[in-house]
């Protein structure tokens, strides 16, 4: 086990975040805070409570999840795509490190960044809306699980992408709609029955529902279902990463 290599990749990536703090930390925090201001403070007071929770507070978990998904994916995707794009990936491939160590370094750093962003957003939310966290341990668990899972997805996208457009494609065309339609701003119980069923095919529903449960004890789907769906997605991502390194897909001809 080349622990020093994992540490080196991890710290190098974290340092990239430090260098680009405005883009990688401040901007997602500000754009999320704008949602709190508009939907939470400004028009939130005119919207009725959902499941006994003020609307402003209700949307906090969903918004956090949405930002985490986007950030995890784009951080991890960019983290591995950039060395491939400029060619510095040769050094990583020629180093005495295993595929697992590469993944832990890159995905670990991307997940850490999203986790930091998530916690900053949570702290920011306090300024605009009154939130409570009923199950803080579960909340953290969901947070970490989501960051890791979607950083893995981002890593996969970063290897699949062979141009900058593809790098943006999945986050913008797939993840954003799924996050908006996954109950960030509403409870899926508010939908007509047919659409409720359709929504259950959206994996983001389980993340948001479980995460919201850790805040307010309310969930659209059972917490056990939420957890197992998230884990299942994690396992799928791990499987794809394993396949990528086994076949050398887009990395080793």
């Amino acid at each position: 086990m080349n622990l020093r290599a994992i540490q080196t990749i991890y710290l190098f990536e974290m340092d990239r975040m430090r260098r680009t703090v405005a883009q990688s930390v401040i901007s997602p925090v500000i754009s999320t805070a704008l949602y709190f201001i508009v939907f939470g403070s400004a028009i939130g007071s005119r919207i009725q409570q959902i499941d006994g929770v003020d609307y402003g507070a209700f949307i906090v978990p969903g918004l956090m999840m949405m930002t985490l998904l986007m950030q995890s994916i784009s951080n991890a995707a960019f983290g591995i795509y950039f060395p491939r794009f400029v060619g510095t990936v040769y050094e990583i491939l020629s180093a005495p490190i295993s595929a697992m160590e590469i993944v832990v370094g890159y995905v670990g750093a991307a997940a850490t960044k999203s986790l930091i962003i998530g916690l900053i957003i949570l702290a920011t939310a306090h300024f605009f809306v009154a939130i409570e966290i009923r199950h803080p341990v579960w909340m953290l668990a969901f947070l970490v699980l989501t960051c890791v899972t979607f950083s893995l997805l981002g890593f996969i996208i970063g290897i699949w992408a062979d141009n900058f457009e593809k790098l943006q494609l999945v986050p913008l065309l797939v993840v954003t709609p799924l996050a908006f339609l996954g109950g960030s701003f509403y409870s899926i119980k508010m939908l007509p029955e047919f659409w409720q069923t359709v929504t259950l095919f959206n994996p983001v529903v389980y993340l948001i529902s479980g995460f919201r449960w850790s805040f307010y004890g309310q969930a659209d789907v059972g917490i056990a279902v939420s957890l197992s769906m998230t884990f299942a997605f994690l396992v799928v991502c791990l499987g794809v990463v394993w396949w990528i390194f086994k076949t050398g897909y887009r990395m080793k001809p």
Partner: protein
Amino acid sequence: MQPILNVSGLSKTYDSGFEALKKVDLAINRGEVFALLGPNGAGKTTLISIICGLVNPSAGSVTVDGNDILSDYRAARSLIGLVPQELTTDAFVTVWQTISFSRGLFGKRKNPDYLEKVLKDLSLWDKKDAQIMTLSGGMKRRVLIAKALAHEPQILFLDEPTAGVDVELRRDMWEVVRKLQQTGVTIILTTHYIEEAEEMADRVGVISRGEIILVDEKAELMRKLGRKELTLHLHDPLDSLPASLNGHDLELAGEGYEIVYHYDTQGERTGITSLLKDLGDAGIRFRDLQTKQSSLEEIFVSLVRGRK
């Protein structure tokens, strides 16, 4: 002495069906400078890339100091430093950061003294805190060498180290290679500049269309394959060669003022004595003569041509 690098039966066929390497066998001795010569697309970079772990082999095996590059990849790769052909560097980090990264990636404990020495040897020490993007192309090339040396490798691969580099820097680069060799590092360089191989290499391998067509000591190679050329400058021009000289392999050049004779230095008889006698008998007088040894470049070109 056991070779430090052993390639046997190595083949590579890309997904496109292109056969880049065909059963290549090659052994590199410890501490030598080995030049791999070949035209573009001959398989030089593919060979290096497989040894360094960038490309998967299709068949065959490679061992580095006895360690298989697939089953003992950690041990094998730890011994190797790679300087790629393209100037692929990070842009925003400093020279010091990038070489520290390289060292860490190879799992080596921090050693600022060693890294300082590497930078000083490459005349990069005063640039250690400069962002890489601010450096010139030649300096970036040095940074790549510093990165490759950061983990104290025993074998250094230089893939076209002087491609696109000006003459002065090329000389500097040769100097760097010589210094490295003195520290006991085995150096394998690919190039299509023959003068580079002629200048630096102990041994030369020629690769063409995925096959190593020849490996030999540089001096031996030049002796064996080197042909000499004798040029006779005539007093009076000739319209054509007299029939009495038909037995010799001659060419008339320089508007009839020169007779060129090719001969093999390895041959039992060079044929010079009889040529001069026949010239005398034919009444051809010459005012000067010169001989020239063919360069590695000419040898190389004739070798590669001969295969086509």
